[in-house]
């Protein structure tokens, strides 16, 4: 910080910062919220499209088969590697009930630039998992929100529920999805925990009509 030229510095110090125009803050936060809503919509539409593509491109994602005749239940547990930002493992949960502007309700877990796990009511596949980040494990993960703060409820038409979580290591996800006869998800429970210490991170109860989400202190 010692490379300054004093004469020039003294002149530049006369630059007076122009004052904020009235309503600057309000305008900024309105624009930020509008932009987030637009991005969330685009992201969800993209995930729906991705899920549709994944139905034919089985190589990238493991599509878990179900009995087609009378519905089925998938109950799997995965250990997922998340991407690191600022020394912490980061992932994002998005869950949305039915919305008139979207073709599907669903849930997705993503890390910074990758999708980890997703399902939605658009396709006829109950669950898509990125096998390069997540592998199936045999670990006991309770499907409950025990140890987490009170849950919040989001009903039909809620635009954007998203939470960003930070962990010290890998993520443990147990997902139980109930499907109809065609493989379309009807309801689901997701329990997210830290793999190392087995501490609860989040618990989501999803259906096309309602999302109930409990978030631990590692999420905001």
């Amino acid at each position, binding site marked *: *910080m010692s490379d300054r030229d004093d004469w020039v510095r003294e002149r530049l110090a006369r*630059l007076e*910062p122009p004052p904020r125009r009235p309503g600057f803050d309000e305008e900024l936060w309105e624009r930020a919220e509008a932009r987030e809503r637009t991005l969330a919509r685009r992201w969800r539409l993209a995930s729906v499209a991705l899920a549709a593509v994944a139905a034919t491109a089985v190589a990238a994602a493991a599509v878990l088969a179900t009995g087609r005749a009378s519905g089925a239940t998938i109950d799997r547990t995965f250990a997922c590697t998340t991407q690191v930002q600022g020394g912490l493992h980061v992932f994002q949960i998005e869950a949305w009930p039915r919305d008139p502007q979207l073709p599907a309700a669903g849930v997705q877990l993503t890390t910074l630039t990758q999708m980890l796990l997703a399902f939605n009511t658009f396709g006829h596949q109950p669950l898509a998992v990125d096998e390069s980040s997540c592998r199936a494990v045999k670990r006991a993960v309770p499907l409950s929100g025990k140890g987490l703060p009170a849950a919040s409820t989001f009903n039909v038409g809620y635009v954007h529920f998203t939470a960003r979580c930070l962990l010290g290591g890998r993520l443990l996800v147990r997902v139980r999805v109930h499907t109809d006869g065609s493989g379309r998800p009807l309801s689901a429970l997701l329990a997210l925990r830290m793999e190392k210490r087995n501490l609860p991170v989040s618990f989501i109860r999803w259906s096309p009509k309602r999302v109930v989400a409990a978030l631990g202190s590692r999420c905001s």
Partner: protein
Amino acid sequence: MEAVLQLAARRRDPLYELGVARLAVTPRRRFENLLDRHEPMLRRVALGMLRDAHRVDDVLQETYLKAYRKLPVRFESERQEAVWLYRILHRSCLDELRRRRRRPEVFAEVEVEARGEEPGSSLLVAAALAELPPESRAVVLLVDLIGFDYESAAAVLGVPRGTVASRLNGARRRLREVLRSE
């Protein structure tokens, strides 16, 4: 939620602490805190880059929107935080200058405003900076106004340290000539 927190605060309830702590770490709070520390200098740099005080708010809004969307979970150091923020501002200013090149009539109006100002006034300093190419303007503002070292300025501008040094020499020389002739 507000009412619950107020009640908890009166009772010195741990819930109050928990609520306050959780509110304090929301991305918006973190971002507002970041702006509190940097905004006055960001405004000066934007004015120095653009010369036009009327466009500073628009460019800062764009900068803040980009920064808020990409706000990292944490910064390794204050230097990293400042470099990250000024890099976004720098790019937003260049975008604005490119747009302005397509609308030269706006710039002509501002030039007229600078005439008849007191020597060394804010407007004349901004006018003198406008005599420099944008790349040199950015270097002199980063080093001589904000106080960045060459490495930090190079990181903001995405150029080698040697380029910063050579641009800075030329920019200082030209700035002296212009300001002394006013």
